[in-house]
């Protein structure tokens, strides 16, 4: 096995030059809970591991009611759910950060790593989509911001170019009447991969739904943003029938596969059940916010 370089840049610029130098022979390291397992499994032939955890922008975690939330790409889950203001303002993100792995994994795993790993089953991605999150990316050609639903392009693949690094994830400040939820189905209580999951959000105004978003995990080659399911609720009351109709649209949109974790039929059924339940909880949470 060849030897690899371990490099600890302290600025984004330095990281970008390193990525330009090593190209596809380098990966950025955040918590390593995916990358170290994959390196051991021989997925990459790397010349360099670039540790992102010593770059200030990748470690930032800032929240204000006016400007919303910025999560540095390497911030571990425990910091996110350990901050009470963030946990209460971003309930869907909070749900996913508390159920990724166990305590040991949460001590290291970042939402940035979850997004860049681009697993169809990634628990944070539907929650980020539900919360309208945007990925802030830097490369040799400058900075760009991309909605999270446009990041994953296939299992383990993203729309980032070689040489680009995810610096942070921005999430708008929720306004009054906002609620969100992420739930998944797994065969045990914790430490497992989602058979299916649903991340949803609703914005209530004067008793009606002003905006809603629905995204699913583990039922397509990428986490799936089901725009029409959320849109079907706009202008309507959050009644059982309307929520059921949106859940049916989520079920229709899912294109799962059959594997050891579940069949196509079971997974589609889960999409309906999980979307419905998640929407009900999101509505309850939105009302509590009032």
């Amino acid at each position: 096995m060849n030897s690899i370089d371990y490099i600890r840049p302290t600025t984004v610029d330095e990281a970008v030059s390193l990525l330009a130098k090593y190209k596809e022979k380098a990966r950025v390291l955040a918590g390593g809970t995916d990358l170290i397992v994959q390196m051991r499994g021989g997925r990459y032939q790397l010349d360099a591991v670039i540790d992102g955890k010593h770059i200030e922008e990748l470690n930032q975690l800032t929240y204000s009611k006016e400007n919303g939330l910025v999560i540095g790409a390497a911030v571990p889950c425990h910091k996110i759910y350990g901050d009470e203001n963030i946990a209460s303002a971003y309930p869907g993100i909070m749900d996913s950060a508390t159920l990724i792995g166990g305590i040991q994994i949460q001590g290291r795993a970042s939402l940035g790593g979850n997004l860049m790993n681009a697993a169809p089953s990634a628990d944070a991605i539907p929650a980020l989509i539900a919360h309208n999150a945007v990925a802030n990316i830097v490369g040799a050609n400058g900075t760009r911001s991309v909605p999270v639903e446009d990041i994953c392009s296939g299992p383990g693949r993203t729309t980032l170019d070689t040489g680009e690094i995810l610096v942070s994830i921005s999430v708008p400040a929720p306004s009054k009447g906002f609620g969100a939820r992420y739930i998944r189905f797994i065969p045990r209580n914790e430490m497992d991969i989602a058979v299916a999951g649903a991340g949803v959000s609703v914005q209530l105004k004067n008793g009606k739904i002003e905006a809603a978003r629905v995204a699913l995990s583990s039922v397509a080659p990428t986490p799936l943003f089901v725009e029409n399911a959320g849109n079907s609720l706009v202008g309507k009351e959050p009644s059982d029938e309307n929520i059921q109709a949106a859940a049916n649209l989520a079920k229709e949109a899912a294109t799962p596969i059959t594997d050891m974790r579940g069949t196509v039929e079971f997974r589609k059924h889960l999409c309906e059940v999980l979307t419905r339940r998640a929407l009900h909880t999101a509505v309850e949470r939105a009302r509590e916010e009032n």
Partner: protein
Amino acid sequence: MPATKVHVTTTINGEPVEFLAEPRQSLLEVLRDVVQLTGSKEGCNDGNCGACTVNMDGRIVDSCLVLGVEAEGADIQTVEGIASADGLHPIQQAFLENAALQCGICTPGFLVSSKALLEKEPNPSEERIRMWLAGNLCRCTGYDKIVKAVMAAAKEMAS
């Protein structure tokens, strides 16, 4: 090409330690094979079993999912650091008294994890203990005795 080794300066169980590691080597491999601290165990080598749990900068982590070179400047506590010169830590004592181990491979991880919990939350509920320890697997003892031992240790430490 011979693997290039990196010089790492760190703190393990309160003592300054220096070692040479290949960037590929996990912290677990470094602890066991380079620093000769074999208390941390390898169960799965992929983050699922928790037998390799160590405390790094105040958080428990699976040392099989940390690179040894990441230990630069860190403060690491392993199972070897739990007992003091005066004897076993109350958590270790409680594991013995409650028969919370059989083969013992999982025990170092359970001890490091439980200690971190009790330092943060001195009086956790049974449910909280079970959730906290979800990243530690045991193939022999069963979890009831382990959870009872942690509850007994919490009581002992509070008295």
